[in-house]
């Protein structure tokens, strides 16, 4: 199943946020979206996931999702969005409650998602008892439980410390390794984008337009090798040079707002 951003434009009041954004996320592909602060990255993701209606253009799906997918487009949120009154297990089970699955099937999906994210021993724990990294793991487990075709990740690591980010990034690489699941990964962190994405969509300053789509001609496995670091660093510098001036302008604009 492909996800298509088809000439999407959006505006909040008098503020133009997105202008004619188009690209396609092919089945199993990981596309990162980067750009200066306020360029509409998260707004674009909300539109792609059906949580916001664009003023012009549309988010479209092409092809059928996998037969066992219960929620083809599934979000992983920056702030985790966990129900604080539910245990880890109940949080992961929450999106399955209305699906009509038998209790045993639900349990099996929850168990599998908890196992894949290393949370089996924490199933009875409440979110407030967990670290930020573990909370995001619960968010990921909840997303995996519904067997998504495409994960929509809105800066999933930005609220975490650098060590936890590194550990979760390893988890993402592992989860996306087999290509069964695609992802749209919104981030302001170029290193994360380069580490994870097959292609990087660079948005301009507000209103966000597609400035460039940068393919990464390396498998995610190859990117972990030491001799690939030079190439990746060069690519990161290239991306940074694309957005640096606009990032400075955007920061000044935010400070003046």
């Amino acid at each position: 199943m492909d996800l298509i951003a088809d000439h999407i434009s959006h505006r909040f009041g008098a503020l133009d946020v997105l202008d004619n954004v188009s690209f396609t996320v092919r089945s199993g592909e990981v596309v990162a979206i980067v750009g200066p602060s306020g360029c509409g990255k998260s707004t674009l993701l909300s539109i792609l996931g059906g949580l916001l209606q664009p003023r012009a253009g549309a988010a479209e799906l092409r092809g059928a999702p996998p037969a066992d997918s219960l929620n083809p487009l599934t979000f992983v949120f920056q702030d985790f969005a966990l129900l604080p009154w539910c245990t880890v297990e109940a949080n992961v089970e929450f999106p399955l409650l209305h699906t009509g699955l038998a209790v045993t099937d639900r349990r099996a999906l929850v168990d599998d998602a908890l196992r894949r994210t290393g949370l089996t021993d924490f199933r009875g724990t409440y979110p407030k008892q967990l670290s930020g990294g573990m909370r995001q793991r619960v968010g990921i487990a909840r997303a995996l439980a519904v067997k998504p075709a495409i994960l929509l990740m809105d800066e999933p690591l930005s609220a975490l410390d650098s060590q936890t980010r590194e550990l979760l990034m390893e988890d993402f690489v592992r989860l996306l390794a087999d290509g069964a699941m695609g992802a749209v990964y919104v981030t302001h962190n170029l290193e994360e984008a380069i580490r994870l994405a097959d292609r990087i969509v660079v948005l301009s300053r507000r209103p966000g337009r597609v400035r460039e789509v940068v393919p990464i001609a390396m498998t995610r496995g190859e990117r972990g090798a030491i001799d690939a670091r030079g190439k990746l660093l060069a690519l990161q510098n290239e991306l940074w040079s694309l957005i640096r001036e606009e990032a400075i302008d955007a920061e000044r604009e935010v400070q003046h707002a």
Partner: protein
Amino acid sequence: MLDRSTHEDPPPTEAAPDTRQVKFRGAGFVPSAGRRSGWIALLLAIGLWQLAAGAALVNPLFLPPPTAIARAIYQLAISGALWQHLSYSVMRIGLGWMLGTAAGIAVGFAIGLSSLARSVGITFISALFPIPKIALLPLLILWLGIGEEPKIATIALGVFFSTAISVYSGVDSVPRNLIRMAQSFNVPFPIIVRRVIWPGALPSILAGFRITASVALLLVVSAEMIGAEYGIGAFVLQAGNLMQTDQLLAGVVILSLFGLAVGRLINWLETRLLHWR
């Protein structure tokens, strides 16, 4: 390579003459309530009151000693009058509170979830909430007769507005990201209300219960003072008219104990329902 030759950086063995400890500046601003000290203070105050009465420092006609009040409560209890008055008050509070709470929750949720209900409801609530509900009792007597109904309706009205406000404030305070999360999983509206909005609004609803319990107690006493034969409010008024201040204060103590019991019940509910906080 990392230099791992040094494992520690010990302080100098001999302190220089100008060495001094960093002054601790972080004390205070973390008040904690010691349960025992509160009870000790209360008992001390009662003891002082008793001593003052014993030393004839206060006129027992205006302020009877605690022992006289305790004796009055005991006599009321064994004569059965206490239970008769209390049962009327509890019945009125219970019915009025439940009716007002049920209506307040329904209207509060409607205002919290529907644009139409919000547009209409908030205007009405803003206009009617400031009215002292006891002022409506004569009107309610005209409408509903002189039985229990107007008293119960007065309490229900008082409880309704505070409940509706705390419920829609609670619904408003549910983090929007949780609702969007549920929507992103295609969770149907009724399940979002039941599993996200209701538990999210519950802290505010229970805080509202604490307020409405006090409102109900205030209104039942006022209503019973205006027009009732039985009830703690009527009993307190009668005792005042007859200058039976020990009986009057016995009624006040019973009201205080009743309020305390309701507060404990709400604490228990909070512990049970909000254990995740």
